[in-house]
């Protein structure tokens, strides 16, 4: 294991301290329980947006805290859901009187911890809604699995809901928008190499130099199948095909195309994949009107890429374009 750390035990706490110092104009970090809130929280009269999940996916979620996106993020241990006390304290800290939306990725641990947190928040008299994100088409048979994982659509939902909340949408509208984004987004990812959880000390799986792992999640867990490495254009096709077929996306749909890096894949390769993915989308008759390219939801130092396609409507497009000022996403302001 080759990492710039001081000790596996301290990775999350030291990274949070660094984030607090680097972005003191935008965020505040609370320790024990750990959560990140926007510097001006709570914002009176605005719906609060709280998300969270295991650490190791930076900039998600902490890097998305700020005006126009999340009010709070709860980081767990690496690849481990945060605990209910983190979420319920964060919920209290951002409650501006208009209720709080919890954006939850569909993983067994996240679901259970957020459920317990929502119970606690209700005891505190805070109006809470939860929306579960489950956009990963790699997970096929929902009846016999924990269901589809929440992946790339989470980033889009957090931005879009944040934009709407900032402009005064009420809790029901923000929650409905979040469900709509999740319902209209599909994702698929693959890895060229595994990642190493600091406390585990070795890679979560082994891939030969000429292999790739297709249908991965974001926790270093193995994917659906292992196959020979293909050229970028072919990889883009393999990712886009199941995405296009699943929703399904139809000729004339206006879409947002998001090409996400898993951590170690450089931007130059992401743009090669983007170029191919956009050509495939256009050939399919889609109008790509919004784009996002970069490492926004990573898996430590995993090499790989995921693609997310979101069918836009007017409300989503407007909220996507709204100003955002966070450590990792910033435009229009």
């Amino acid at each position, binding site marked *: 294991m080759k990492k710039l750390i001081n000790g596996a035990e301290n990775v999350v706490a030291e990274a949070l301290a660094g984030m607090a110092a680097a972005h003191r104009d935008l965020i505040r970090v609370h320790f024990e329980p750990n959560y990140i809130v926007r510097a001006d929280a709570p914002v009176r009269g605005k719906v609060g947006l709280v998300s969270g999940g295991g650490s190791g996916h930076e900039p998600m979620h902490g890097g998305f805290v700020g005006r126009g996106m999340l009010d709070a993020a709860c980081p*767990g241990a690496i690849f481990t859901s945060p605990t209910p006390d983190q979420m319920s304290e964060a919920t209290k800290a951002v409650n501006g009187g208009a209720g709080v939306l919890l954006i939850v990725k569909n*993983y067994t641990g996240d679901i*259970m911890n957020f459920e317990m947190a929502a119970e606690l928040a209700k005891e505190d008299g805070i109006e809470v809604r939860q929306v579960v994100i489950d956009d990963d088409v790699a997970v096929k048979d929902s009846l*016999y699995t924990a269901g589809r994982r929440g992946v790339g659509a989470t980033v889009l939902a957090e931005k879009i809901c944040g934009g709407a909340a900032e402009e005064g949408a009420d809790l029901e509208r923000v929650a409905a928008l979040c469900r709509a984004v999740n319902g209209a987004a599909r994702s698929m990812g693959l890895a060229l190499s595994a990642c190493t959880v600091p406390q585990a000390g070795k890679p979560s799986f082994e891939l030969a130099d000429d292999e790739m792992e297709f249908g991965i999640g974001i926790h270093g867990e193995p994917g659906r199948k292992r196959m020979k490495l293909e050229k970028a254009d072919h990889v883009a096709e393999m990712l886009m095909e199941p995405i296009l077929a699943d929703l399904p996306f139809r000729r004339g749909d206006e879409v947002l195309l998001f090409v996400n890096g898993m951590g170690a894949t450089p931007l130059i390769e992401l743009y090669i994949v983007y170029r191919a993915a956009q050509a495939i989308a256009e050939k399919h008759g889609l109008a790509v009107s919004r784009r996002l390219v970069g490492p926004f939801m990573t898996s430590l130092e995993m090499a790989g890429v995921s693609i997310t396609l979101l069918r836009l409507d007017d409300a989503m497009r407007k909220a996507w374009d709204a100003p955002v000022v966070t450590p990792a996403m910033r435009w229009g302001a």
Partner: protein
Amino acid sequence: MDDDGARGRDTGALIAWMRRLAATIRTHEAELTALDAAIGDGDHGANLARGFNKVEQKLDAEMPATPAALLRLVGMTLIGSVGGAAGPLYGTFFLEAGKAAGSAAELDEAGLVRCLAAGLAGVKARGKAEPGDKTMVDALTPAIEALGSRGGLAEAGRAARAGAQATAPLIARKGRASYLGERAIGHVDPGAMSSVLLIESLAEAG
């Protein structure tokens, strides 16, 4: 002679169980992590060790008065420190076991079975899991059945271990292992294995 479940367990005896369990989890941390790396994300050992270390710290600082208070303290500590799926599941196990303990000063064998069964019911409700889903339920269910039919704790430990081993040929239906489909076949479920340690440490603590 399997008479280990015959006498009552007071709060002190249950604390001895928790300390034994904490030590056992530290000893087996790497094994649990390796099982989890095969079909999950490789953090089960570290997460449980973090939680039970915290339990030990709490028990160094305060002495719960009753079995119910002790079990509740353990549950709340795990929920607040483990995270992942294991935090709510093991936390719920001890919280529900604590509720079933009522105001008893000690748990006789029937009382112990009642508490463990309540814990298992809580786990099944929280995780929406049934036997055969390749989860901790597959180790706890036969163990508690063995104990309930007066098999004694040593027999319960053996039943738990057999139950965990029997998860190897299964396809997982819950948790991250379920994403793997048939690739989960051949691997023992890490949660089932940590549940074996829970039961075995109860037998060892006497």
